[in-house]
């Protein structure tokens, strides 16, 4: 995307602060689909299964709404939209807590391939992801739990016809059901940002050992994947692995922030609805100022987090130079807000809010897993300061 001199002076001029009518209609269509397909009875059923998703719903979501390829260019079988639309999808999925390998396939793997892949790789790998025919994920973090790519230790060694991977990845989202793995690794004897690159391999290859982890948030399944001389192909080239990986993680961070504000809004709605019907001391508890003021504060916090998440998505779509910093900003904001909203939603429900039968804990656990997934708020605040040159 080219930028004019004028727009470089004031990026906010190019960044849209309102969604278009088409985007709003798109959001409504997803909302209707999810109301129908992902009520909490379904969330509870699927989170108890080993796979953690419903293949029939995944197929419908792919075929009827084309969601996995929403941001993938048409030439690779996608719908040809961008980050803003992708983030509308994740926001709605976060609201409904849909159990599906969407974040892994569309947000992590597809973006990694779009950012790093050669023309031939994009043409061969992306159409199956866009159509929902193939599930995929991106493996970055290792046993140390660090999200900074510099701490990657998994080694890729050059061999005839490609590379072989040795090491262990952990906290891999949907790693248990992915068919295609995109793996961040480093060349032998390299440190820091040097020698980092992305590799692809079939998840059922020889030398790949996958073990599901017991995740506190059962709607986001995690796996540990050990690689023992597993055969892999280089994705793209060796020169810009560090940048393409960073770009992919920053995009994922923005998509996650949008998912999180969708969940936070859902919790706010739930808390407000409950305080309007719950009666104590002869009044609905929502008529007490102690409750009203807290809900007003929470509304403010949720709206601010939404503004940050939306702005980051718009800035990324517009390729504004500041967008990687804004990814950190949006994630830090969404993390604090989502978790506070979840804790307050339990508190405003009183004792019933702490029970398994009440749905609040489903979002509470998603809020907790999202808080640390892709980096804690303190990590993103520090990164924000660095990216702003403070």
């Amino acid at each position, binding site marked *: 995307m080219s930028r004019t001199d004028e727009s470089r002076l004031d990026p*906010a001029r190019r960044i*849209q*602060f*309102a969604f278009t009518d088409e985007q709003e209609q798109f959001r409504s269509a997803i909302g209707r689909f999810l109301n129908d397909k992902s009520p909490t009875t379904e969330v509870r059923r699927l989170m108890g299964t080993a796979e953690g998703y419903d293949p029939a719903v995944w197929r419908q979501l792919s075929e009827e709404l084309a969601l996995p390829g929403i941001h993938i260019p048409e030439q690779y079988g996608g719908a040809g939209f961008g980050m803003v639309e992708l983030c509308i999808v994740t926001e709605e999925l976060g609201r409904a807590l849909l159990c599906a390998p969407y974040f892994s396939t569309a947000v992590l793997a597809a973006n990694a391939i779009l950012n790093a892949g050669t023309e031939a790789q994009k043409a061969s790998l992306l159409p199956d992801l866009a159509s929902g025919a193939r599930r995929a994920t991106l493996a970055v973090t290792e046993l140390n739990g660090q999200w900074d790519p510099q701490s990657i230790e998994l080694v890729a060694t050059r061999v005839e016809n490609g590379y072989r991977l040795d090491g262990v990845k952990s906290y891999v989202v949907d790693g248990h059901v992915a068919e295609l793995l995109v793996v961040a690794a480093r060349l032998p004897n390299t440190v820091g940002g040097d020698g980092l690159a992305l590799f692809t391999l079939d998840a059922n290859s020889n030398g790949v050992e996958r073990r599901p982890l017991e995740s506190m948030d059962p709607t986001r399944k995690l796996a540990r994947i050990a690689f023992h001389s597993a055969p892999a192909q280089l994705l793209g080239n060796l020169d810009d692995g560090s940048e393409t990986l960073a770009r992919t993680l920053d995009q994922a961070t923005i998509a996650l922030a949008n998912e999180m504000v969708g969940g936070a809004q859902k919790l706010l709605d739930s808390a*407000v609805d409950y*305080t*309007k019907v719950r009666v104590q001391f002869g*009044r*609905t508890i*929502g*008529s*007490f*100022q102690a*409750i*009203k*003021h807290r*809900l*007003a*504060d929470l*509304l*403010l916090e949720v*709206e*601010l*987090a939404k*503004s*940050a998440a*939306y*702005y980051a998505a718009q800035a990324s779509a517009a390729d504004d130079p500041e967008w990687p910093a804004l990814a950190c*900003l949006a994630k*830090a*904001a969404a993390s604090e807000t989502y978790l506070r909203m979840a804790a307050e939603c339990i508190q405003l429900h009183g004792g019933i809010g702490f029970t398994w039968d009440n749905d609040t804990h489903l979002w509470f656990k998603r809020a907790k897993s999202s808080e640390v997934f892709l980096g804690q708020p*303190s990590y993103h*605040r*520090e990164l*924000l*300061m660095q990216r*702003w040159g*403070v």
Partner: protein
Amino acid sequence: MSKINEAEVRAEVRTWLTANWDPEMSLVAWRSKLADSGWAMPHWPEAWYGRGLPVGLTRVVDEEFASVGAVGAAKSGVRLLAAATLLEHGTDLQKKNFLRRILTGEDNWCQLFSEPGSGSDLAGATTRADLNGDYWIINGQKVWTTSAHHADHGLLLARTDWDAPKHEGMSFFVIDIRQPGVDVQPLKQMNGHASFNQVFFTDAKVPAENLVGRVGEGWKVAVTTLAHERRGADGLSAPSKRGSRTGRIYLEERAELETANQPYKWYPQRAGRVDLVIERAKETGANSDPNVRQEIAKLMIMAKSAEWTARRARAAQQQGRPQGPEGSLGKLAASNVARAAARVHTLITGTEAMLTGSGSPRDGIIAEILVSVPAVSIAGGTDEIQRNIIAERVLDLPKEPRFDTGPFRNVRRN
């Protein structure tokens, strides 16, 4: 009515300016001419110094004025709130007496609503007005009155019926401030500035013709004034952008603005000066402290998100969509940002935060931030009132039970 064409308006105002604009005129002489032409307030009715143009076209007129550097009508202080209130509720005699001198800047105005006993609960006012022949006799006390010391007239809300329910027993007046029964005293604030006044009334007189609206309808009239205040006609004049131009009229305008803006000199500090935070962290070396970096990031995230929230609200409005919750949150967000900024400024400044005045950091500006921020969550509606408004209007939560119904005489008060 035929559709008014933007190009025609532009051509017409341009022609008029070419024929009449002269920067060597006195401010009052020019504004008199302007008031008569209707170009001062083009969206006002034709009968009262306007041209009846749609509000949307005033932008065209403003642009033409700006392009030749022409000075507009006086707009500082609460004069435009007074004008809007009189246009809506005033008698023809009142419009004739007051509107023109509002526009020329010859008269200054102040707003006499808040009282020591009624802050958030403005309708609990106890300043009384008793009719005696052709005059209302005013007794009581108002407070937080900006610029009362150089005002000519005041918009006064006073109680005229103590047996009516509180909102129904008040009336609205225009009072002459320069009379023996009115005593204006500056009110010194904790930050040392005195931006406001207390105004004491002892048998002050208001001629019966200066009642605005009917007896007992004062609250309704005051609501009009407050609505205009919320819409932003709050008297905070932007510094003149015509600084480099020469001519007698510009000198007079600058002097006028300086006086009008004097009470607001500390307002940037009251908002927390987020703009200084990163600079200060670098100049003090506090940017190398991981804890300070976290706190700066938290503040900047909040401030940026608040700014984008305001822009979302504006964008939705421009697209003609119903305003979402983001439109009601600005004031509360601003309070949170200001408080957080004061905390971070303290963290960055450290022990030096114990000092004030010209020997303290940034020539006393940092100290002024720290002692001015407490105003932001009170002025123009406390945070608590904002939360009630958000809870009731946006989240549709029920109101608290009331204890102030029935005759005002029996309502508990300060």
